[in-house]
């Protein structure tokens, strides 16, 4: 390897390190209010996209006890963990938002999927509370059985991931037919809910 080539590689490494430091600094500098705003923006964008590819989802979400929107991409200010993502759960009755984080062992949301965007819909308040408060996880069995397309009506397109819990998982081409949330857990984001 000649000297010129080595210098170019070193310069590129320095540039990439600088970019990474810049991203890290902006993530650390983001205030809770800015991070909440970023998640709210993500929620709006994800719901708009869902309603576009599957208009019946709007009615299903409106009549539910609540819903939660998650993604592992596109939230520049958060950088929570490369192995996870962020989201927000919304109680339709009280109007209350609970900010949450998504933690994956990689084999769930990452299973052949580059970007995860999902909207969970909860049929009852109990299911919503359980999701928010108990470190909810879709079991392997549920995942294996969770397939869409057999329900018809407003719920068509959603995947049943647990009793009373459905998931619209968006892909680049529309809705996923099978959930990839196995081995992924959801916790309250205390930093964003407390301040």
């Amino acid at each position: 390897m000649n000297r010129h080539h080595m210098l170019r590689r070193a310069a590129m490494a320095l540039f990439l390190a600088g970019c990474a430091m810049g991203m890290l600094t902006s993530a650390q500098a983001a205030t809770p209010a800015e991070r909440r705003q970023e998640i709210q923006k993500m929620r709006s964008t994800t719901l708009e996209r869902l309603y576009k590819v599957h208009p019946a989802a709007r009615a299903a979400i409106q009549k539910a006890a609540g819903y939660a929107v998650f993604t592992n991409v596109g939230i520049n200010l958060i950088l929570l963990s490369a192995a996870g993502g962020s989201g927000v759960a919304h109680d339709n009755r009280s109007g209350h938002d609970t900010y949450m984080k998504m933690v994956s062992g990689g084999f769930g949301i990452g299973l052949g999927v580059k970007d995860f965007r999902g909207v969970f819909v909860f049929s009852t308040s109990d299911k919503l509370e359980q999701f928010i408060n108990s470190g909810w996880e879709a079991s392997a069995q549920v995942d294996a059985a969770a397939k869409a397309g057999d329900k018809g009506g407003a719920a068509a397109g959603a995947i049943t991931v647990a009793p009373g819990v459905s998931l619209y998982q968006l892909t680049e081409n529309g809705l996923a037919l099978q959930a990839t949330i196995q081995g992924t857990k959801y916790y309250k984001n205390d930093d964003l809910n407390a301040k």
Partner: protein
Amino acid sequence: MTYEQKPLGQQVNELESAARIAAGHADPLFATELELRADATRAKVLLGEAQANAFR
């Protein structure tokens, strides 16, 4: 890039990071599961290095 396409070293870092978050939420079972996955992935890294050295 999907999870499977990421370098093994990055997978280890992500699993360790996820394990720390789970532990921070008083979820030792999930944290342990993630740590074990990180260990298994780390073993793959070492195996790859050993194989590369053997053929050198």
